[in-house]
């Protein structure tokens, strides 16, 4: 029973890692590559680590494996978001067939702040100065 679970988890994990690698090679755009990397590789490595936890069936090993999985699941979206944001500011173009750019015109290109935030800040300053005067 345990062996069958190890076969299933390690096989699925290797399959997802292979899919992530093929996606990183074949996707046409930086943003799509970041997306593939984050989703597929995180799930694949989580399954591979689960396979090793199932093999040892020991409390200390299981604790370590759960710590690694939780760490990866927390940090992968954060780093993907940061890299995607930087890639948008550096000026990498979207793929020619993806025609929706939700961030277009919403970022201040020189200070890297959201324009809505800036406007709100200015409004607050104006209201403060009015109330002071």
């Amino acid at each position, binding site marked *: 029973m345990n*062996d069958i679970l*190890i*076969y299933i988890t*390690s*096989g699925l*994990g*290797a*399959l997802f*890692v*292979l899919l*992530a*690698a*093929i996606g*990183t*090679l074949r996707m046409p755009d*930086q943003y799509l*590559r*970041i997306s593939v*990397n984050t989703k597929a*590789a*995180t799930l*694949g*490595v989580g399954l*591979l*680590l689960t*396979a*090793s936890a199932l*093999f*040892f069936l*020991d409390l*200390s*090993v299981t604790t*370590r*494996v759960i*710590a*690694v999985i939780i*760490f*990866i699941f927390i*940090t992968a979206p*954060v*780093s993907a978001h*940061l*890299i995607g*944001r*930087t*890639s948008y*500011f*550096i*000026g*990498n173009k979207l793929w020619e067939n993806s025609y929706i750019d939700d961030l277009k015109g919403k970022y201040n290109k*020189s200070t*890297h702040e959201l324009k809505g935030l800036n406007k709100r800040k200015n409004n607050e300053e104006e209201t403060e100065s009015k109330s002071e005067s």
Partner: protein
Amino acid sequence: MNIHDFLYYIILPILSVSSLLVFVRFFKGPSIIDRVVALDLLITIGIGIIAIYSILSDTPTFLDISLVLALIAFLGSVAFAYYLEKRNKNE
């Protein structure tokens, strides 16, 4: 086919082939963002290889190294993103 043979002859070759494919993207990558993403994915595949190798050699101590590698991958990509954005701002 017992579990040792399965891991040794099927899973490890799949992981090696996928790390080779990521290496191609790492050398080809048109922009520096591609290289950072490929490096992140390489380290992540390394964590998976360590997990399988700890089963094969029956030493669970190797899993500590995977924790350190996960930390290094996160720190590396965050530092790259931070300084690339700074460089763009100053220019």
